[in-house]
């Protein structure tokens, strides 16, 4: 039987690998998304700050900051485990993972927490970069960090599943650009979802990114679109469901074992 926790040092070594791997190429993994977010801030913020978008009574730039931080966290957290696993398949080292005396739970957590670290780092650096535009005030700072952690956890789990399921980078990028990026745009990053025309506004009910963006926004400006309690509950459900799904596929050996 595989124990839940078996090799603490092995778990930390794997987590270290997941962080060290992306820190070796910071320009691609941290700087590039950060520059994108700053450009969004300058262009959208500059263009739309005088119009009636966002939540009434909230300056548009303040509305935008948590959305951008969440979007940065989502993409970075997804890419870290997905890219890591697919790279190992590409390099023919994925079978090494089966030879370590590390429990499945520890392996899953190492991959997910590596993604969480990168997601939170990109999210916080995005916030830090926007201080220049909007100042440093955050309504609930600790809650903001926790919101970024929860968002990153959800998408690191999804990234782990994608890494296990897909054999190459093309398929992973397909999911990223056809599913995750549109959901992010329709999840309230740049505008209030309820102001979208017709059926598009109903997307918020099935878009898992909607509650995540709103939890971050509530932590940052103290208000959000919809009920914060419901968003919090949905966020916790997403954390649990995506983790259990990742654990299920990992334990099944999807993409890493021949059954």
């Amino acid at each position: 039987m595989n124990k839940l926790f078996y090799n603490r040092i092995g778990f930390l070594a794997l987590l270290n690998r997941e962080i060290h791997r992306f820190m070796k190429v910071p320009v691609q993994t941290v700087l590039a998304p950060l520059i994108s977010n700053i450009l969004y801030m300058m262009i959208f913020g500059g263009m739309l700050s005088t119009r009636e978008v966002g939540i009434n009574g909230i300056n548009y730039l303040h509305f935008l900051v948590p959305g951008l931080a969440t979007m940065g966290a989502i993409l970075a957290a997804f890419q870290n485990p997905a890219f890591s696993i697919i790279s190992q398949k590409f390099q023919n080292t994925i079978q090494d993972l089966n030879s370590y005396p590390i429990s499945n739970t520890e392996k899953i957590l190492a991959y997910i927490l590596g993604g969480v670290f990168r997601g939170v780092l990109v999210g916080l650096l995005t916030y830090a970069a926007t201080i220049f535009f909007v100042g440093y005030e955050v309504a609930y700072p600790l809650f903001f960090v926790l919101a970024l952690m929860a968002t990153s956890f959800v998408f690191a789990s999804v990234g782990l599943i994608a890494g296990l399921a897909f054999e190459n980078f093309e398929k992973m990028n397909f999911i990223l650009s056809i599913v995750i990026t549109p959901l992010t745009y329709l999840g309230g990053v740049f505008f209030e979802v309820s102001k979208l025309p017709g059926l598009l506004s109903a997307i918020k009910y099935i878009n898992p990114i909607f509650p995540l963006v709103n939890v971050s926004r509530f932590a940052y400006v103290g208000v959000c679109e919809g009920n914060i309690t419901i968003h919090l509950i949905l966020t916790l459900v997403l954390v649990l469901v995506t983790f259990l799904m990742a654990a299920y596929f990992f334990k099944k050996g999807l993409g890493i074992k021949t059954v």
Partner: protein
Amino acid sequence: MLRVKNVSMTYQKGKKEALKDVSLTINEGEFTALLGQNGAGKSTLINILAGNVKKTAGTVEIGGFDLDRNELETKKIIGIVPQDTGYDFVFTIDEALKKQSGYFGIQNNRDTIDELLEALYLTEKRSARLRDLSGGMRRRFLIAKALVHRPKILILDEPTAGVDIEMRHTLYEFLVKLHESGTTIVLTTHYLEEAEKLCNRIVIIDGGKLIADEPKTDLMETFSQEAIIEVHFEQSLTRSDFEFLGAYDPEITEDNRLLLRAPKKELSKVFKMLSEKEMAFTNLVVEKPKLEEIYLRLIKQ
């Protein structure tokens, strides 16, 4: 040390049988050659031991631990050098070996890493990234990687494939020393002279079945009643020249060389038949069958 009992493995929903009821015991301190043609089932067996492939039947015990019930304990006992020289693009040798030690629960493994790098002539390259190494260096790195946790059993899946002769001999020396220090070694290879030189036990798999499993000396002894005779003639040969030697499996290996296989007790009879033919020969060599010869005979059977 390693016990495989009635292990079977079927792919494609039972359509393809990669291993058929294989049973095998490898004792502590043995140096075993696992031989077989491509697709015979060697790599499947190794992949089962490594946890990459799930067997469909049978039991595997590694160092006294059952693979199904105590999988994590078995990982600490074996080190595996894969056939493929896959490597992580971003890390240096040093970083990769430190991380590998960590995966096996070893925090400070500097001495072992230094020792392995020295023994495998990689010390000067320790700060080089893996993608910058030559093929031979990567092979040596993979051996170092499999040994950082000092496993009791080392399994090498064709470690010398594509390696130049000089480096191959360096690896032989390293493996002999490792074996002398008490490590149990299982080696798969297509170079049978390598198996003959290094191993003391021969296991042959063919079509997913175990067809031989004996100490090397016993296997060689079984075939020692036979002699391989090579005769070099002055003139070119045709098959019709040697129809009278049909019982001794005559084979023209080069234009003027003839190979015969005969029981030792019939050697004088063979020589008499040859001399009666009155064909001048320049050289005559009588040898015991080599492992390669025995292997081919067993596979044919």
